[in-house]
């Protein structure tokens, strides 16, 4: 299992992803600098959280234009698995690899807290081993998912919503929605199901010592999906 973790100036969850992949999962993980080419024969590309290019202009907008992103696009078009977390989700949306945008949170403030999520589909390489409910930390100011009504409808129809924010009872209510995201969307995949993004941080929930290991479900799902391909 070979993983490439992109690093943009201002990325700050790249090391955390590395710890989850190399430490918890035992994968071979390498950093890929934003101006470099994507190494050959990767199984998974991870786009980390942080503040790429300081989030200047618009979150993810400048990183989406980085040289490495052209390779990522080709990798995705070839069916390669790409997962963006937090700022990585924003970058994938800005790059057009995922539909929609992440707007400023309802309330306008950064929020760092555990979020309760419901896995909406097991039919993706990123969720096939996820539990029905999971708690993952969020830490963002621009995580309010938005898409035009047509896009939103297609996402729902095609089963592209991977995770929704839910309340203590497990329902996607306004009370369970930490940022105002449409349809309580926390994570989605593309129509081909090989590119996904989510605002919560699975890599921050990869060991019980730090408060939980629910995030490992995503990594195990990827391992299972790739195992199934071989």
């Amino acid at each position, binding site marked *: 299992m070979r993983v490439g973790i992109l690093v943009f100036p201002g990325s700050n969850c790249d090391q955390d992803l590395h*710890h989850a992949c190399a430490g918890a999962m035992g994968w071979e993980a390498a950093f890929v600098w934003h101006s470099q080419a994507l190494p050959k024969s990767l199984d998974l590309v991870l786009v980390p959280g942080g503040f790429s290019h300081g989030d200047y202009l618009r979150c993810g907008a400048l990183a989406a234009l980085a040289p490495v992103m052209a390779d990522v696009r080709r990798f995705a078009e070839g069916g390669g698995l790409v997962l963006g977390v937090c700022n990585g989700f924003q970058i994938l949306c800005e790059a057009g690899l995922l539909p929609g945008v992440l707007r400023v949170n309802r309330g306008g403030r950064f929020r*760092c807290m555990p979020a309760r999520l419901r896995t909406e589909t097991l039919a993706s390489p990123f969720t096939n081993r996820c539990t029905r409910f999971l708690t993952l930390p969020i*830490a963002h100011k621009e995580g309010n998912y938005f898409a035009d009504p047509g896009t939103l409808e297609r996402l729902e129809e095609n089963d592209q919503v991977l995770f929704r924010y839910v309340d203590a009872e497990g329902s996607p209510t306004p009370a369970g929605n930490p940022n105002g995201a449409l349809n309580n969307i926390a994570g989605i995949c593309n129509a081909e199901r090989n590119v996904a993004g989510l605002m919560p941080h699975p890599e921050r929930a990869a060991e019980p010592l730090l408060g939980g290991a629910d995030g490992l479900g995503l990594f195990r799902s990827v391992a299972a999906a790739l195992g199934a391909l071989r």
Partner: protein
Amino acid sequence: MSPRHSAEILKHHGVRPAEYAEIERGLGREPNLTELGIYSVMWSEHCSYKHSRRQLKTLPTKGERLLVGPGENAGVVDLGHGRCVVFKMESHNHPSAVEPFQGAATGVGGILRDIFTMGARPIAMLNNLRFGDPADPHMRRLIDGVVEGIASYGNCVGVPTVAGDAMFDAEHGGNILVNAMCVGIARTEDILLARASGAGNLVLYFGSATGRDGIHGATFASEELTEETLERRGAVQVGDPFMGKKILEATLELIRRKLVVGMQDMGAAGLTCSTCEMAARGGSGITVDLDKVPQRAEAMTAYEIMLSESQERMLAVVTPENAEAALEVCCRWDCGGAIIGEVADHGRVHVHHKGQLVADIPALHLTENAPLYDPAAEAPAPPPADPEPPALSDAELRDAAYRLLASPNVASKRWIYERYDHQVQTQTVLRPGDGDAAVLRVRGEGGAPDVFLSVMSGCNHRHVARDPRRGAQLAVMEVARNLACVGAEPLGLTNCLNFGSPENPRVFWTLREAIGGIGDACRALRIPVTGGNVSLYNESAGGAIPPTPMIGLVGEIADPAHITRPGFRAAGDAVLVLGEAPRHIGATEFDRVVLGAKGFRGTVEFDLARELALQHAVLDAIRSGHARSAHDVSEGGLLAALAECCLAGGLGAEIGGIAGDNAAVALFGELPGRVVLSCAMESVAAVETLAASRGVACERLGLVAEGPLRIGSLGDFTLESLRAAHETVPDGC
């Protein structure tokens, strides 16, 4: 006296006549304006500690594990296995009062630079905020701006903000306090000092270009806040956290690859302070050419370039052989990079601009001959006796309990810390709200084991105002007690001394006493003071702020199994309280909220030896595996502490009744400190024995139970009602 500079110019620079005479003596002539500017910032209180240096020298600064003590960018304590912890606290009070967002953001940026300049990767930020009444819309603007500023910088740079505190007292309303602490981890071999050595070595500048922002920030920080100073917004700097992140990475790479021999960030007094201090510490001289300094404003004068406090700028000394590799690192991290001068053996600071030598100052004269004052000290009138505690009915006591829990000083600070990323770097074991102190797991590298550190900072200024010596002892010991409650023992202390004008004899007396108290407590704990910061002249039209010696501690947890939380764990466990029952109600949160702030009176009932015994007893109970939870009794007293133990554990408790002559004192008294412990029933005798062997009182309060918190005749407090009160957010915040 000075034919060259008018009295007004000297006053503007905060240079006194005797100081001017010393400048003339050191130079052998009158200074030009650039030189005067350099002296004025180097000899400001902020850089020279001219009013506090003598007192600071009394602090204990030795320790077996101390690697670097006061005088450098930050203190360093050994962690074994070739690793060390680097930490320091600093203030950004005046800038935050003028422009809260940028003031607080640049405060965070500045303390981060102090840590990574030493070669350490910052792993945690803490902040301690003192505001006035949040009911005041102006104050709410300051609160929101400061919190947003801290969040914007820390979150972007990717350093978790893990602990700290916030207090809201009218006395801080005219002059808010923004103190920030940063903790970093380094390989001991990478620790780099701020020294310019080796004649012929080159001076490398990298980071942001120099602009006109923040000129005279250090002098500004050493003045009282008046209408006029509040208008001086040009003295407030603007932060760029993205550049902060890039210079962090570039600096650590430069140090790890051993491409630099000395490093200093440009914080207060910018290029002046970094060049002069590095030359003086290195016992060398330095020559810089201002034409080579990257500039973002047109036609800047030498005076402006030397005194600019533009943020995110670094100065390093490199050997000529390594210059190219060092510049390549700066370029890759997109943070400029220019050789602006060289180290020389002439012992002077030579500044060239447009082909002219515009400043020529003996480096040591700037540092060694900085003025040193021994201000007059006068003890204020002894405070009157404590207010008589009122006899309240059970209904009134219940009402007081809810009002206290909802008071912004006691209530959860979730509304603040939720805006800070406290988990990035995936090392945070106890987050804000999880424990009495933060706990971080530092990953072992290269076969070294993981290290568990605990960090906390705070100061209850109300007790310092009543009795600065014991109040300061208490400030140190309360943070140490926080560490003990999570299972940690302190390794070292940093501080930020926030006081009024030292030229006021009563303020100076208070400062002197408080420093004495910090020293007493450090000696009792056997820990060194590793460095800190002094913020004087915290005054406004309303007078001086209450003396606020903010204390930051870093501690170590020997075994991760000892990490202890405040929440009750299982129904049927015994609830114990260790320590002495309070005897008065003075200067408590109860006094402020219920009695209407009858105030800072009476003596501070606090004894260092007894407090130390209490902390040892708590650590014994934790390390022996008996304690299942531990929580410090602080603002709000025993009742607030019990409520917090219930809320954190999601369990209630049956408390028989609380002993004491006066119910309000027993429930809401805060001094001397105590700790609420819970343990399995079969452990009670063991905990009592180990407490007794330390001479520490141990009282059985009752049992952990499903359902509400039930306290004797006061009746039931449902967890829902306690939570609603404790999660109260001040209106509009």
